[in-house]
């Protein structure tokens, strides 16, 4: 009851703040709220992710959703649950293997990347009728987000910010140099694992919004665009958050009027922010 009334008041707030055609239908209000939950969480995690050069890791987790969804359908559980759980498992496994081998992180992630796709495709191809189900996960299905999923996204946003409140400084320090961070008393391994798990949570949740193929963009592109305008850590973080929210809202609006896929349009707007800020940076430098 309270959850429903909370969501209800958030919907009416959106109606007041965005008095436009596109924000009128309830499914659009849901989509907007979902994006307002997911985009800042993705961008906030994206800033340290880019710092760590972990874009490929995030992509591997995204593609683990193939298997995650397939498992869910096989077991008759909601695919979102198995997708998140399997994403967490893969993230944990990658960190574990990376720490125990001489292979480069790229190679380890590459092995996992292809394995989870292959596993997912194998399971899906054996189950007729599953391919239709998969479309929503490949390209995202923001307009069909349920209220339960909205609630989950809201909780995720709070959890991500709580985590970053505690760990942001330490994560950035590890990103500069592990040994140096360790000498400063940072628990390096614990942070690596916890950050990988948080990334996995955000990635698998954001798949509902923009899909497996584009989910890394939601983390990486706002952070990359923010780098074009920011000099210090604070401005980079807030610029990424603002660019993510702006891309989300503008993308949803544009997709409504142009009748394009929502997730793809959101990512295109974010990419446009990147291009404009990169050009602006070049012009200022001259």
């Amino acid at each position, binding site marked *: 009851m309270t959850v429903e009334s909370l969501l209800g008041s958030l919907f009416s707030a959106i109606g007041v703040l965005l008095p436009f055609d596109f924000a009128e239908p309830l499914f659009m209000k849901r989509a907007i709220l979902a994006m307002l939950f997911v985009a800042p969480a993705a961008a906030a995690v994206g800033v340290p992710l*880019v*710092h760590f*050069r972990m874009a490929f890791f995030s992509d591997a987790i995204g593609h683990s959703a193939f298997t995650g969804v397939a498992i869910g359908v096989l077991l008759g559980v909601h695919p979102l649950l198995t997708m998140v759980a399997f994403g967490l498992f893969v993230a944990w496994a990658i960190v574990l293997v990376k720490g125990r081998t*001489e292979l480069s992180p790229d190679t380890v992630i590459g092995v996992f990347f292809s394995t989870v796709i292959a596993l997912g495709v194998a399971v899906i191809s054996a189950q007729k009728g599953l391919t239709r189900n998969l479309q929503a996960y490949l390209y995202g299905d923001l307009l069909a987000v349920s209220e339960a999923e909205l609630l989950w996204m809201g909780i995720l946003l709070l959890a991500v910010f709580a985590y*970053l*409140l505690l760990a*942001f*400084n*330490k994560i*950035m*320090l590890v*990103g*500069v*140099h*592990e*040994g*140096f961070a*360790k*000498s*400063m*008393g*940072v628990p*390096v391994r614990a942070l690596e694992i916890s950050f990988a798990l948080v990334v996995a949570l955000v990635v698998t949740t954001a798949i509902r919004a923009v899909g497996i193929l584009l989910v890394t963009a939601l983390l990486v592109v706002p952070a990359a665009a*923010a*780098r074009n305008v*920011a*000099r*210090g*850590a*604070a*401005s*980079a*973080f*807030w610029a990424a958050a603002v660019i993510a929210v702006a891309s989300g809202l503008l993308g949803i609006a544009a997709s409504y009027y142009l009748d394009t896929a929502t997730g793809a349009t959101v990512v295109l707007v974010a990419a446009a922010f990147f291009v404009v800020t990169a050009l602006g940076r070049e012009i200022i430098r001259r």
Partner: protein
Amino acid sequence: MTLPAHHHTLEIRNLSARAGGTEILSGIDADIRCGEVTALVGPNGAGKTTLLLAILGLVPCTGEIRFCRAAEHGEGVPRIGYVPQRLDFDRNAPMTVQDFFALSSQRYPVVFGHSARSRRSARESMARVGAGHLISRPLGKLSGGELQRVLLALALRDNPDILLLDEPVSGVDLSGEELFGDFLGQIHSESRFSLLLVSHDLSVVSRHADRVICLNRRIVCQGATTETLTPENIAAMYGSDAHLFRHGPADGHGHVHAPPAAGRDEGKRD
């Protein structure tokens, strides 16, 4: 002659470390004495950086590393300062020197700004190494020498009991000689922390180190600098083609140069 009883800051006993099936360090026994400058020298791939990482607890190893803390330094675990040879970080990262200091001196995320305390400690620490003007510069835009000053300033900020300093090889960074001449010698004589210096420049070692540990996957020899850096030991460590030059005043501090090959490509994991 009786030597004064030295306090050890660090006692390493039978330490061995492996990576990828090969033994990088085996049966290391060494003591780092309180307040002294101990140089760690050895050829390329001798395991010098690995030993520092083992002390930091960053590489798996067997054996014992005991930290001892002199009573006058107070209770608790000794603080270790560490200056890595080089930082392999993203040079485009939006992070100023002030941000870098704040990361380890304030609880709340730097995205909410810098605390007054972290500003003050950054200013003081940077002034100490003669680099106060760098404080608002982006970390990735600093030269090798400037970055090294920042790392040293940060490592010295919390008054470490032990400073692990991995001297860079390449000519673009500050050489050990410049570091000591500029500020490190003075700071060390004021604060008397134990300094473990990985060095590739035997003339720096002979001039500034109290003791030397010669390492080549195992301990080749160790002891007081003048007694340890003998032509025989250097030849045993670097091979017989080591170029040895002895010149300058006859004060026992001659210039001894390791062969040039000893200093190259040290960075990855020797």
